[in-house]
């Protein structure tokens, strides 16, 4: 057993209201610089939808992540390139997304509003490209298809819809049945990161102590393979400095005991942060598992931080007492391993992402009949289906499986059954209009107990700040030896250096 610690995350999608506060918090701290304007280390997208950059999930196009070499059961390799092939493609990366796959960043000519000569019309502020400095037409933005962007044309191209039948796809955008949810995304700080594997210069690396994936600005030579290698498109190319950049999980904040800015600012309080202990010896095995077992294998890497053997192995690996304690109180451990509610995003990319999502509750199908809201076919006496139902969900379960379990419907269903049990249990407790029999049925179907449900409710609905963010002490005094304080440097110097990051010599 080779026990390592990983700062991990859970996003509870049922609580996400799609307000983009997280994105703004991140932008204001880290990416409000030339060359980085188009970057959203944290972005929120509407699902179904094509996201940012457009259709990032389509790995036939972008070649991110890993694949099994020759069918099932064998070793995995990068989808992007072999080592030799990578060096051969270095002069031109055939799978690099360009700025048009994201959007051309712009500002407005605000000055014109004040300086325009008197005339018959109101002056307008034209959009000015932040790249060329010239007037431009705005053709896309970082959340262009937010809430479907007023049209089904964007969502239609969501790669996950391939898992559905023609009929199901059509239903999704029917007026009365329309359904969507939000997917906030940051770097997953994977255990088997594609960006690290793809970087020829070895500039991208994982911090041993906490698993945060960083990109050395000094070692990066703009071979730009990390952008392609990351299946989540969470490494970005700074077109001005000629260096790639990525989410740093606000490590300067973590090291001073604060939650990352996107976590801290989250209005819906959907975000949880905590340490997981995992067995690095089994990484390769877990990443190479057959698709339907990927989530299971991923979970099995995570070790019980209360188990004496695990604690012993952790200590032998130099993991501090404080870190182990943080792991024992980790909300992420509960959501992912104990309750099995939270699932990795696109496990089939085989990067072992360490950001897990509690899938959003599925609204049920309903009709308006004679002006009355009628929960379709829920005429039975039971209330359950009204609260949520897998069978009558507007969003087909296979869509969720395509996102959160590499297509394994059972895994997602288990998660949902437990959440439905939580709802029914709480309805009975708070409103009292559900029969005890129905409650027991739901608990059984969800494979859970009243006790566990209470714990889930507490951490979901009423957690304290300290319960949501169990930030381990990251020994900043040790980490700081290698760099300067990024907070004081970031505006004038980017992070970690002594002079402004100018392009070229």
């Amino acid at each position, binding site marked *: 057993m080779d026990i390592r610690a990983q700062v991990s995350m859970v996003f509870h999608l049922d609580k996400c209201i799609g307000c983009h506060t997280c994105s703004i918090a991140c932008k204001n701290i880290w990416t409000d610089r030339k060359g980085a304007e188009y970057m959203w280390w944290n972005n929120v997208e509407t699902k179904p939808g094509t996201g940012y950059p457009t259709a990032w999930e389509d790995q036939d196009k972008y070649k991110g992540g890993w694949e099994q070499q020759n069918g099932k059961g064998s070793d995995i390799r990068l989808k992007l390139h072999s080592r030799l092939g990578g*060096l051969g493609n270095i002069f031109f990366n055939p799978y690099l*997304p360009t700025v048009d796959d994201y959007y051309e960043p712009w500002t407005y000519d605000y000055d014109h509003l004040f300086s325009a000569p008197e005339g018959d019309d109101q002056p307008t502020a034209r959009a000015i490209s932040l790249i060329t400095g*010239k007037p431009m037409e705005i053709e896309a933005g970082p959340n262009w298809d937010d809430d479907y962007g007023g049209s089904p044309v964007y969502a239609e191209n969501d790669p996950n819809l391939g898992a559905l039948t023609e009929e199901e796809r059509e239903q999704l955008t029917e007026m009365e049945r329309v359904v969507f949810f939000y997917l906030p995304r940051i770097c997953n700080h994977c255990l088997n990161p594609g960006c690290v594997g793809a970087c020829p210069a070895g500039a991208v690396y994982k911090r041993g102590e906490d698993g945060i994936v960083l990109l050395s600005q000094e070692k990066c030579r*703009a*071979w730009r393979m990390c952008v392609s290698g990351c299946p989540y498109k969470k490494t970005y190319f700074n077109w001005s400095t000629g260096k790639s950049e990525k989410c740093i999980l606000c490590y300067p904040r973590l090291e001073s005991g604060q939650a990352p800015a996107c976590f801290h600012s989250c209005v819906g309080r959907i975000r949880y942060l905590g340490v997981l202990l995992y067995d690095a010896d089994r990484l390769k095995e877990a990443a190479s598992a057959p698709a339907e077992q990927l989530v299971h294998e991923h979970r099995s890497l995570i070790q019980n931080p209360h188990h004496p053997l695990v604690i012993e192995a952790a200590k032998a690996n130099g993991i501090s007492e404080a870190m182990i304690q943080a792991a024992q109180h980790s909300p992420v451990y509960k959501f992912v391993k104990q309750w099995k509610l939270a699932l990795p995003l696109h496990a089939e990319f085989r990067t072992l992402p360490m950001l897990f999502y509690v899938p959003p509750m599925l609204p049920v199908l309903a009709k308006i009949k004679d002006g009355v809201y009628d929960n379709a076919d829920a005429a039975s006496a039971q209330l359950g289906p009204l609260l949520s139902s897998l069978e009558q969900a507007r969003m087909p379960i296979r869509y969720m499986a395509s996102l959160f379990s590499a297509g394994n419907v059972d895994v997602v269903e288990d998660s949902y059954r437990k959440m439905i049990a939580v709802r029914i249990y709480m309805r009975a407790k708070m409103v009292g209009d559900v029969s005890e029999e129905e409650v027991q049925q739901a608990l059984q179907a969800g494979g859970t107990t009243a006790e566990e449900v209470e714990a889930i409710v507490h951490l979901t609905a009423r957690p304290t700040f300290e319960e949501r963010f169990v930030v381990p002490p990251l020994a900043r005094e040790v980490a700081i030896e290698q760099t300067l304080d990024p907070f004081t440097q970031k505006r004038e110097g980017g992070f970690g250096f002594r002079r402004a990051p100018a*392009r070229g010599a």
Partner: protein
Amino acid sequence: MFDIVLFVVFPYVAVTVAIISGISRYRQNRFSYSSLSSQFLENRTLFWGSVPWHYGVITLLTAHLLPLLFPSLWGDLLSDRIRLYVLEVTGLGLALMTVVGMTLLIVRRLRSPRVLAVTSTADWLLLITLLTQVAIGFWIALVYRWGSGWYLHTSVPWMISLLVFQPEIQYVTALPWLVQFHLLAGFFLVLLFPFTRLVHVFTYPFTYLWRPIQVVIWNRRPPQKQRP
């Protein structure tokens, strides 16, 4: 006297400056070492420019270097007529590739407003010098036939004489002025090295071939076993 400045002083100055400035830039401003890729801003023309350019120029540079390192081997290689033909034709083809590639790269920078926005004066100087250099190289190969042969008995001994600090310029002073210009432009490019994006050539990431695929860095602990 003027020849001595051109063919002795200038090469020495160029190489010395390149080495000293290159190392000091690497030590003091490593951040600036980058290929400064502009593919993110423009993708299509770059393919037709960058790929022929690089495969052409790297092969040609190697072909310029080999006779310097293994003069007798190179001589043997040329002793066969067929091999000589193949070599000359290949060289000519590669030179054409670089000329076309670099022309496209320059046209691309002029035509794409986005790429133009990230183009510096140093970029222009470098691109134009490179285009001049490969165009002249191509012309020389076309007009002064069998360059793979006479190169071995003119420029090579001259460069070796410089290398061993016993400069003998008579090897090159009698060459046509176009060839002399090609030699000098070569050393001008060496001079440009540390001040332009050319530094990217020396950071070619060979180590990717054998390094562990995953990179884990510890603050104090030496790296342990590393995995996929």
